[in-house]
């Protein structure tokens, strides 16, 4: 390929971004996948407990968080599209918007955690809350890590570090951020809705 921008109708050997991040993405998918399945089978052993405890969750804040993360993920798609046309500033603005929504997600999540911890619920209260808190806290930390990555990319983009020809970093950050969103898309219905 003369230039390495991604023309729309061409099949590429590797996914966008650095292949190393994809090793990490698949490893995280595996880890979360095992946790999701563990949740499902733990639920199978004590359905009443899970159904009853699930009532106390704040499903609204979970749903809003899903919308927030999907939109933030969409912003990253726009950021990648912008940088493909060499628009560094526009790309940086899209990333900033994505990080902004990231903070919104964290804020909602922290409010939800405070409410939960306020009632004295902890990792050892019962199996459901152990899974609920472990999964959401584990995901919560991934959101923070993702925002650190996006911030690093935004700074580099602002300094014109990326161009139409070379923007692997942006695609790497975007792929990781999409993974964080993808995991929440499964986590929300599994933990908050299915009963």
């Amino acid at each position, binding site marked *: 390929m003369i230039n390495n921008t991604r023309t729309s109708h061409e099949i590429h050997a590797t996914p966008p971004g650095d292949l190393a991040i994809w090793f990490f993405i698949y490893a995280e998918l595996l880890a979360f*996948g095992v946790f999701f399945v563990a949740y499902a*089978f733990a639920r199978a052993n004590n359905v009443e407990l899970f159904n009853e405890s699930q009532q106390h969750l704040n499903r609204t804040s979970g749903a809003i968080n899903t919308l927030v993360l999907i939109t933030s993920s969409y912003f990253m798609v726009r950021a990648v599209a912008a940088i493909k046309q060499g628009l560094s500033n526009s790309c940086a603005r899209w990333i900033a918007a994505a990080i902004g929504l990231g903070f919104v997600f964290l804020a909602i999540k922290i409010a939800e955690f405070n409410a939960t911890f306020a009632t004295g619920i902890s990792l050892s209260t019962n199996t459901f809350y152990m899974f609920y808190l472990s999964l959401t806290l584990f995901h919560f930390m991934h959101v923070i890590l993702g925002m650190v990555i996006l911030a690093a990319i935004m700074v580099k983009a602002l300094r014109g570090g990326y161009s139409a020809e070379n923007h692997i970093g942006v695609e790497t950050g975007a792929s990781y951020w999409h993974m964080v969103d993808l995991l929440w898309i499964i986590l929300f219905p*599994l933990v908050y809705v299915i009963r």
Partner: protein
Amino acid sequence: MDTPHKPHFIRPCTRIWLALMILTCTTFAIGETGWSGTAVMLTVLGTAVIKVEMVANYFMGLRRTRWLWRGLVLGWLILVSGLITIAYLMTVK
């Protein structure tokens, strides 16, 4: 994903974004009704699977990569949702 930027033309990714938002709202609505049962579970889980596939293929751009990378995500998704369904069905009988 990078068709030239023409005004008043809704990008594919925006359409995908809208679809995802709507599907999320439906899942939330189902949750609010408090229904339970296999049919409801399958709809909710099915919605999640569709949403994940949309994010993986359109947002993550796996649509235009070799089947290896798409297959990995799809395979993982089918395995996880399959096991969740099995676990759920175990409790229904």
